[in-house]
């Protein structure tokens, strides 16, 4: 079954091919990732059939040793089991839908070739992540996804907003990823392996070690899945193209954290009980914060972003209660209906040229397909029977109920409250957008945008009924929903929808008046519970202050030293220049003029007159004669005699003169 490696390889190859193309070529071949993704989808279906009828045991495992560390092999590998196949199906189906939709949505952007290439890389990373058989490969794909997320959020990097949002997303998830890396290091220290089977089943964990590792993994998951307090990046991430938001920031990447915790669940069970209780409360607070903030947003994508945060919190609640099957089922249903909602929002934004729901209205008349499919998604999100959200939400509520401890009761109450709030804010959006009078010249989207939405809507409508089969596929036992819990959940949804219809529909309550009446509440909500403000004050500004101090140090001390050295060097050079000019040039010139002067003297000897040469010859002859005479004894005697004679003559002349 080694062919499963082709599933992530197809989009990866498409990306590699597009990476080396020119922009024109990329734009022309923008269907290439779609083709690759379709191939992956086909192979995923084959993998699903191969795994059928499911269970906990993997049907295929392969590993490849990268190196040996301290005697233990550092291996990466693939693993195909029920969970990975389910994730494969989600990623490929949503991926294909988003690719088709993007062809319509991005049809005017000059850089759309690059968009499709990055989307392809993201798909490859996500597919590799769910196929990974060990935490190391999972972590690698995890980081590649983070890169793609950064690139796609900042796709329109000419504008300030997307650029800032991409950096914020990258840095915020990085905080969690540091925890992830620490968890992995601790895992290696204790288990000497990253393999799922070894780490999760063959290793006997002490409670303390399991706590360290699982908290590390949880930190990574909280960053990626936008859990409080690391959720702040996801609303800003909506600055990217809407289909990318649908695929990455709603359906797949943000769910990777849930997938990670679900995978590592045996580790969480080995840890002290408070770790899982902590997971539940992280999820509960996230679900609550997300739902409350979604109510006050006016940007349709931000509503959906906070809703995603809230639903991811829901999944964490389920994980904390030990219901990884319920969490994964909610992940699947959420992936379909939330990507559907995002795609619908994309069409609406395209048609109305605004993201503000206050400026929309009456779209049901001009955009019937979008309205219908969006309503499918909204009903599923609100948990209305028979749409998929109802089933998965019910599974989570049942898991909490079955747990039957004080904290799971508390979480159950929060979950029901969040369900009601979810139904309420979705009703608010639907009424604002689709009801009322027509206030724009909107038209229905292109076929390549509407058809994927219709496909997703169909899946959303029917997938809920697979709930027991899904559980069986994962190797769990779960029947049809308990009637009491189904009624309770539906009541919560109905209450939310009813309140929404009453406030925004029939009664037409002035929400601005409500805001004025509760100014403190509305300020807190408008500021998103002050998370961003706290981070800005506490982290960003502190960091900027330290950076400023360092910059001044740099400017004064370091630059001073450098400039001083330069100045000293310059002075030394000047001195050397002077020495060069006076000393060396002087020596050279002096030598030159000496030679010239000597030459001038010497050339007088070479005047060209025969008699001058003769004189020299005579002087030379005289010198030779004198030399030979003076060096012979008789000659010396004669010379002495001559000298005496000269002295006598001179003396005589002097005497005579006197």
């Amino acid at each position, binding site marked *: 079954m080694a062919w499963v490696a082709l599933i992530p390889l197809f989009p990866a190859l498409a990306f590699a091919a597009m990476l080396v193309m020119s922009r024109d070529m990329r734009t022309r071949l923008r269907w290439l990732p779609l083709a690759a993704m379709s191939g992956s989808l086909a192979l995923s279906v084959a993998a699903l059939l191969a795994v059928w009828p499911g269970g906990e045991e993997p049907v295929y495992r392969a590993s490849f040793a990268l190196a040996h560390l301290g005697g233990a092999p550092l291996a990466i590998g693939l693993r195909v089991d029920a969970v990975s196949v389910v994730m494969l199906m989600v990623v490929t189906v949503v991926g294909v839908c988003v690719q088709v939709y993007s062809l319509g949505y991005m049809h005017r952007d000059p850089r759309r070739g690059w968009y499709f290439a990055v989307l392809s890389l993201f798909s490859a990373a996500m597919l590799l992540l769910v196929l990974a058989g060990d935490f190391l490969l999972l972590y690698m794909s995890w980081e590649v996804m983070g890169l793609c997320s950064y690139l796609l959020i900042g796709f329109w990097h000419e504008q300030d907003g997307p650029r800032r949002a991409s950096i914020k997303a990258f840095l915020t998830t990085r905080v969690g990823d540091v925890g992830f890396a620490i968890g992995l290091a601790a895992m290696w220290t204790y288990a000497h392996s990253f393999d799922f089977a070894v780490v999760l089943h063959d290793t006997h964990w002490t409670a303390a070690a399991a706590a360290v590792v699982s908290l590390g993994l949880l930190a990574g998951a909280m960053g990626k899945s936008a859990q409080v307090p690391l959720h702040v990046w996801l609303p800003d991430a909506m600055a990217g193209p809407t289909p990318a938001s649908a695929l990455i920031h709603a359906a797949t990447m943000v769910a990777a954290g849930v997938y990670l915790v679900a995978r590592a669940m045996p580790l969480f069970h080995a840890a002290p009980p408070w770790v899982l209780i902590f997971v539940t409360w992280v999820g509960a607070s996230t679900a609550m914060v997300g739902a409350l903030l979604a109510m006050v947003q006016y940007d349709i994508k931000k509503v959906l972003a906070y809703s995603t945060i809230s639903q991811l919190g829901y999944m964490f609640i389920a994980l904390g209660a030990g219901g990884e099957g319920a969490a994964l089922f909610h992940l699947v249903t959420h992936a379909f209906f939330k990507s559907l909602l995002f795609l619908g929002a994309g069409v609406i934004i395209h048609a109305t040229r605004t993201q503000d729901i206050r400026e929309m209205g009456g779209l049901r008349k001009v955009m019937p397909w979008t309205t219908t499919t969006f309503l499918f998604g909204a009903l599923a999100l609100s948990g209305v029977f028979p749409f998929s959200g109802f089933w998965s939400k019910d599974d989570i509520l049942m898991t909490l109920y079955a747990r039957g401890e004080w904290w799971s009761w508390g979480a159950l109450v929060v979950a029901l409250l969040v369900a009601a709030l979810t139904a309420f804010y979705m009703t608010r959006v639907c009424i604002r957008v689709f009801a009322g009078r027509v206030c724009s010249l909107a038209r229905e989207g292109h076929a390549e945008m509407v058809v994927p939405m219709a496909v997703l809507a169909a899946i959303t409508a029917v997938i809920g009924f697979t709930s027991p089969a899904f559980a069986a596929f994962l190797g769990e036992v779960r029947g049809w929903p308990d009637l009491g819990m189904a009624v309770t959940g539906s009541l919560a949804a109905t209450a939310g929808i009813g309140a929404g219809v009453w406030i925004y529909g029939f009664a037409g309550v002035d929400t601005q008046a409500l805001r004025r009446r509760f100014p403190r509440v509305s300020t807190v909500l408008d500021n998103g519970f002050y998370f961003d403000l706290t981070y800005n004050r506490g982290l960003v500004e502190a960091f900027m202050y330290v950076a400023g101090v360092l910059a001044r140090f740099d400017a004064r001390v370091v630059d001073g030293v450098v400039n001083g050295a330069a100045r000293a060097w310059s002075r030394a050079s000047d001195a050397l220049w002077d020495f060069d000019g006076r000393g060396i040039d002087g020596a050279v010139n002096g030598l030159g003029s000496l030679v010239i002067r000597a030459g001038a003297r010497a050339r007088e000897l070479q*005047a*060209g007159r025969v*008699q001058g*040469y003769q*004189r020299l010859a*005579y002087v030379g002859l005289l010198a030779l004669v004198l030399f030979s005479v003076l060096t012979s004894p008789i000659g010396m005697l004669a010379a002495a005699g001559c000298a005496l004679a000269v002295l006598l003559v001179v003396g005589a002349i002097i005497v005579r003169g006197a």
Partner: protein
Amino acid sequence: MTVGPIAFMALAALLFCIGLFGALSKKSAVLVLMSLELMTNAVNLNLVAVSRFFTPVSMAGQFTAAFIIVIAAAEVGLGLALVLALYRIRRTVELDRIDRLRG
């Protein structure tokens, strides 16, 4: 008082010095040639005197002197011809102004 070899040698040395002085200091090429003749004759005088006083049997000195006189006559002829040729080219025989050896 007999005239000894020292007197002849002294006369020869005097002649040679006069010739040398003339050769080194005269401006006219003709005068220089004449000075050269003086020096040649000083040598001839020495040859004849040495031969007469120290080897009276052999006449080698006298013969050599006669030979030199013939050669010197030829040499003067050649020298005067050169001077004439020089005069024809340079319109002068003043040695100070003939400095083409300078290059």
